[in-house]
């Protein structure tokens, strides 16, 4: 009997036992789709977060108030336990100490309400100095960044992100127009190209002001963090040391300085844990799917053993039986795997609306191999045992 005939027999047998075939396939489908989906979410989130940090520009060094390592401060945001915040003087002092090549940007981030006419929009303001555009590699759709003179004069000028533009200036060119930010009147001097991404806050839903203007608007002399862009990538560690030395006299141990690499490392570690957790859940779904397959196969062992008895009684050889059952198992696993991969993949595409996802080949391969392995083993092993029985024993099997 040739392979083609074996295929035909296997397909006929699968067709004759539709419910059993579908349930087995379902086990593979659930396992594969779940793993692909969950790992895609984990990887997607990780990629997005690290991507958005890398997207800030390169060779960056971040200085936070509070000691992150000793757990005293916590993240960098203006937490209650932080004793002393940075001020503009600290930034200027750093710029003097580092020289003109390495650009120092004091940064404030805060919630803001923007208004044009009777349209109101909640957004985030990010404030920096005249180097912001260069340091964060701003991509202007139109207009320009703020000048040094505008920073020193606390000018009420603003650059707006793509979402803000869409919401507040739906059908006119915002350049040169006025908008209200927290009740004050600002002139739009630039717009940014849409960046996409959603997880670390909509990066397009931001407005950018000169730091001094922001301070006045918020009624504070503090700034959130200081970011330094090193001119020379090989000098980053050295500059980090110089920043630490410069800040020490005034802040003691109550500040932290991270390079972009370190920040990325910390975040990836955190997000890696998330991915591992998701993968764990995915593993459970795989197991559940596998148990489902096993169950169906084992429940049908007696029926299949009798089927094998009948086939042997009319002259099937061991090879005929085995090739039929191996092909059956492979067809089910591959069909289930392909459907599972399709569902997992389409699902991750669909989920992109809510959360970033990234389908990873290793997850696809792992999920598929596991489910297919379980399917083939529990499909073929009982058949192998039955194929070695005398026909009459197989026919009598209870």
């Amino acid at each position, binding site marked *: *009997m040739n392979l083609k005939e074996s295929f035909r027999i296997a397909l006929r047998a699968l067709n004759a036992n539709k419910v059993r075939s579908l349930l087995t396939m379902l086990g593979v489908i659930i396992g594969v789709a779940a793993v692909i989906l969950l790992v895609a979410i984990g990887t997607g989130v990780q990629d997005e977060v690290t991507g958005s940090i890398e997207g800030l520009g390169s060779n960056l060094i971040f200085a936070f108030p509070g000691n992150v390592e000793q757990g005293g401060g916590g993240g960098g945001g203006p937490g209650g336990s932080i004793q002393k915040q940075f001020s503009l003087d600290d930034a200027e002092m750093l710029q003097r100490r580092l020289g003109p090549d390495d650009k120092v940007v004091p940064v404030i981030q805060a919630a803001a309400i923007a208004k044009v006419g009777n349209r109101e929009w909640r957004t985030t303001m990010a404030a920096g100095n005249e180097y912001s555009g260069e340091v964060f590699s701003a991509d202007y759709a139109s207009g320009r960044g703020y000048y040094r003179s505008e920073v020193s004069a606390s000018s009420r000028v603003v650059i707006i992100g793509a979402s803000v533009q869409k919401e507040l200036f739906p059908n006119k060119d915002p350049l040169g127009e006025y908008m209200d930010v927290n009740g004050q009147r600002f002139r739009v001097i630039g717009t940014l190209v849409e960046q996409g991404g959603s997880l670390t806050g909509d990066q397009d839903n931001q407005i950018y002001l000169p730091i001094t203007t922001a301070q006045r608007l918020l009624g504070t002399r503090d700034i959130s963090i200081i970011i330094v862009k090193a001119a020379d990538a090989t000098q980053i560690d050295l500059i980090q040391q110089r920043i630490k030395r410069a800040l020490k006299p005034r802040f003691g141990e109550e500040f932290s300085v991270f390079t972009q690499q370190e920040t990325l490392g910390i975040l990836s570690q955190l997000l890696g844990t998330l991915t591992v957790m998701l993968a764990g859940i995915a593993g459970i779904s795989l197991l559940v799917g596998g148990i489902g397959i096993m169950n169906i196969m084992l429940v049908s062992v007696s029926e299949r053993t009798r089927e094998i008895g009948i086939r*042997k009684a009319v002259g099937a*050889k061991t090879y005929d039986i085995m090739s039929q059952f191996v092909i059956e198992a492979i067809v089910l696993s591959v069909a289930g795997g392909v459907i599972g991969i399709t569902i997992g993949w389409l699902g991750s595409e669909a989920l992109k609306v809510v959360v970033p996802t990234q389908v990873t080949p290793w997850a696809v391969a792992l999920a598929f191999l596991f489910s297919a392995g379980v399917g083939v083993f529990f499909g073929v092993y009982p058949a192998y045992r039955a194929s070695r029985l005398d026909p009459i024993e197989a026919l009598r099997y209870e």
Partner: protein
Amino acid sequence: MSENSETTPIGARGCESRRVVLEARDVSKCYVLDEIEVHALRGLDLEVCDGEMLAIIGPSGSGKSTLMHIIGLLDRPSSGIVTVEGEEVSSMLPNQLAAVRNKRIGFVFQSFNLLARTTALANVELPLVYSGVSGAERSRRAKEALERVGLGDRLNHLPNQLSGGQQQRVAIARALVTEPSIVLADEPTGNLDTRSGMEVMSILQDLNTEHGITVVLVTHDDMVSRHAQRIVALRDGKVVREEIVEKRVIAHERRAKFDAGGEE
């Protein structure tokens, strides 16, 4: 037994000028269950002659099915020799046995043993699948076999859409589709009503008288056994009696009489 058949002593059998197609010599079968030995067959001897129709009778548990399975190569004896058309079977490998079952022996089970959820036609094609007949030739022969047992109009019925008698006829079609020289039937009428039983018996008798196929059947029914030319009685795993049927029941006649409302 009845007055028109004559009983001969054991040992007087023999095929005379005819060939022996099946032979069991000193065959024993012993099952061990929970350390208790059950001797289903105890040193049984049997010869089946070419072209004969033989009935095996005996009380329940006397070893009839066990014997049929062994001479049908579905089971192995614990000891003793089985030969099929002169070839000794015990030295054959499982796959060689499968080939002999496929080509030379057709087996009809008391409980039909059809593949579930599989059409009558596909069930009958099954032995041909394993003998390498393919395509149009295969379905033509399967159709022919089903027509022979009067089921030409039930090709695509599933077993559970057929009556017991029809299922048994599908099983017979499956047994004869490879044109075997021997058909073995274990209580082929056991699960059937009288009328269906008569149909099955006329098919088996036709196979024997018109196509010269050797038929061995097991039965509890006196009337059924007298369709055969020879009756062998078992008890406790041995042949205890043998009888040549002087006046065979002719299945067609009996059925015609039955249909005309005559007494059974």
